[in-house]
């Protein structure tokens, strides 16, 4: 126990001898939480539309005006034909083309139905889909408007049926995030990202640095047990992670008014278990690396996988089965889910206990491996 205390003291001294580290611990979370939440949004506004109006009738004008008035769209141009509009899309001047056929008004009045064509840039598939859904909504609104105005022109039999159309009122209610604010969803994710980067990269460089500097040989000739050595390496990152968490929790409350409904204690407990698992991963990488360059590539490799397959940016539930299997052993996924539940759903520590157990199991395996893979013989 006494040895451990001294070892921990050594680690802290080593860590703070590099002036970048204390600055990093304070400034990095501050910068990330101050700037990046504003960048995340899938809500699309300002879709630029070109309307190709072959009909040039009252109805087509009304539809065009309705699109232009919508908060989602900006009427960019009304080119004479589709090819001209397509050229605009190629030049990245417009995102969407609405083509109204020449017979639009005649069809509406005579046949009581009509159609329009929508072409949308779908390099970003989700955006393309959302954009065309918005157009469809506007077109549907327009057609029920017409139904109201033109009921009188219908034959009596149909008119009665239209009047008798039954109405199911579908009322969506967005629980936990009624304003559909993407920032609130992403901020718990940013906290996990910060912990992963700081408590993953630093330990990954730690032992390999001692190898490159030759100081590891001095440790290896002492009677310090492998267990104590690794523990002494791990514990300082707990401290680092807790400082990062306290800064993050405070900032996200002050700037975004976000406070964990499940309690700060629950958030900190989950963070502690998580830090243990990523730091363990870092130490394993450090043990297996010969140079700091190798360690840094490897740790970035794993961090990218943890983050991009961890449900922070894209949902785990839409991944193929094999990727979901990876997510099942991904600590990032468990903590992100737990933080989001604690922050947004108001879940309690008991509600996230499954996630914590999984994190604990991962931490035990990784740190066992870390102790095992540290060889005292050079």
């Amino acid at each position, binding site marked *: 126990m006494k040895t451990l205390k001294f070892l921990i003291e050594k680690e802290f001294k080593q860590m703070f001898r*590099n002036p*970048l580290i204390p600055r990093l611990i304070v400034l*990095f979370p501050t910068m*990330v939480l101050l700037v*990046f939440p*504003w*960048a995340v*949004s*899938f809500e699309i506004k300002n879709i630029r539309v070109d309307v190709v109006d072959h009909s040039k009738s009252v109805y087509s004008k009304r539809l065009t005006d309705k699109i232009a008035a919508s908060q989602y769209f900006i009427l960019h141009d009304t080119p004479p034909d589709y090819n001209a509009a397509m050229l605009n899309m190629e*030049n*990245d001047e417009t995102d969407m083309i609405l083509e109204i056929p020449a017979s639009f008004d005649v069809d*509406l009045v005579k046949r*009581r*139905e009509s159609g329009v*064509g*929508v*072409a*949308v*840039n*779908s390099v*970003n*598939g989700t955006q393309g889909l959302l954009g065309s859904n918005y157009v469809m909504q506007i*077109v549907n609104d327009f*057609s029920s408007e017409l*139904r109201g105005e033109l009921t009188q022109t219908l034959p009596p039999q*149909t008119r009665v*049926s*239209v009047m008798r159309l039954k*109405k*199911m009122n*579908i009322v*969506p209610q*967005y*629980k*936990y*995030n009624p304003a*559909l604010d993407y920032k609130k*969803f992403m901020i718990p994710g940013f906290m996990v990202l910060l912990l992963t*980067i700081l408590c993953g990269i630093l330990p990954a*460089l730690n032992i390999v640095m001692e190898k490159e500097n030759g100081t590891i040989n001095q440790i290896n000739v002492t009677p310090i047990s492998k267990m104590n050595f690794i523990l002494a390496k791990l514990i300082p990152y707990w401290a680092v992670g807790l400082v990062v968490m306290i800064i993050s929790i405070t900032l996200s409350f002050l700037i975004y008014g976000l406070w964990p409904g499940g309690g700060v204690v629950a958030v900190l407990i989950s963070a502690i278990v998580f830090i243990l698992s990523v730091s363990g991963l870092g130490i394993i990488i450090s043990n297996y690396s010969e*140079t*700091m*360059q190798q360690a*840094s*590539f*490897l740790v*970035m490799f794993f961090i990218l996988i943890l*983050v*991009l*397959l961890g449900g922070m*940016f*894209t*949902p785990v539930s*839409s*991944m*193929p089965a094999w990727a979901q299997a990876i997510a099942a052993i991904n600590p990032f996924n468990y903590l992100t889910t737990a933080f*989001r*539940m604690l922050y947004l*759903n108001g879940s309690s520590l008991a*509600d996230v206990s499954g996630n914590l157990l999984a994190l604990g199991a991962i931490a035990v395996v990784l740190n066992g491996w870390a102790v095992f893979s540290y060889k005292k013989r050079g």
Partner: protein
Amino acid sequence: MKQFIAFVKKEFRHIIRDNRTLLIILGMPVVEVLLFGFAVNMEVQNIRVAVYDPTPDAFTTGIAERIRQNSYFNYRGSVQTMDEMEESMRKGELDLAVVFQQNFQEELVHSGEADVQLLSNSSDPNRGSIAATYTTAIIAGFQREQTDLIQIPFQIQTENRMIYNPLMKSSYMFVPGIMGLVLMIICTIMTSVSIVREKERGTMEVLLASPLKQGTMIFAKTIPYMVISFIDFVIILLLSYFVLDVPVNGSLLLLFFVAILYITLTLSYGLTVSTLVDKQVNAVIFSAITAMIPVLMLSGMIFPVDNMPGTLQALSAIVPARWFIEVVRKVMIQGLGMTIAWKEILVLAGMTLFLLGITIMKTKKRLE
């Protein structure tokens, strides 16, 4: 020139002899492109849904049945109480609940109106709203079938065409992003760490004693890295084309040119970092943080730049990957040529010159 070539050869040997590092540098992009290319997508699937139906009737069971059969939904049956529903939503076991009012059918037939509420777990706003939209569409479809009209008058059909990505594959959007991210990380860490390492170990001093100018020497060092990074790019491109089925619609030559330009830029960034720090740890931390977070957040790789507020759009303009990703999407997916791509290429070239300028200035200062 002869000296220069000899120096480049020496650096090549250094790298090739370090088998492990080489394996990591060449293997990392392969694994990541495959993992992310297949797994990362924004589609909303497997929506876990439950129904709360106090008085089941033909209409409510009909709607529930439609939802159960829909492939986007994972039907979890019906809940008996609202409390039960609330609890499983709070535990994160449920994404959406369809709540019918009492005596739904009776209300609908007699008063012509009935309420159905969709409680959508919107902690993820994207998922929450799309899940509600899907459900609304299903109920509206069911409603249309209940009318005695052959056709509701004054309907306007919309015929949708998805340009450039008709199958709406997420990989079309993500592959250029992954290219930008992986190259940025590898190139920056590779150059910055290896040069700072020589500084840290003092071998730089030995090199400085050689008759080669320091500037020339540093550029000789980056040439092997350029070759390796280009091989990485080709590997990613081949995997994207043959395994992920992402098309190369534009000129391959132009794509290679853009890649070489971007690699030069990211290597120059690594050089710049190496002039700013003097410890390997700091080089790694600095490169890792500046190469990863801005690319993930501001490059348009995941979150479209057009959606960001003005200040952040301006900030994103200094992220090299933003321009690279844009131009790769244009050339690869949209099949556009130089007439459109020149703007991004110009920005990338300008950034490269700027960073090289800083590096040369900083290096000269050290010689004095």
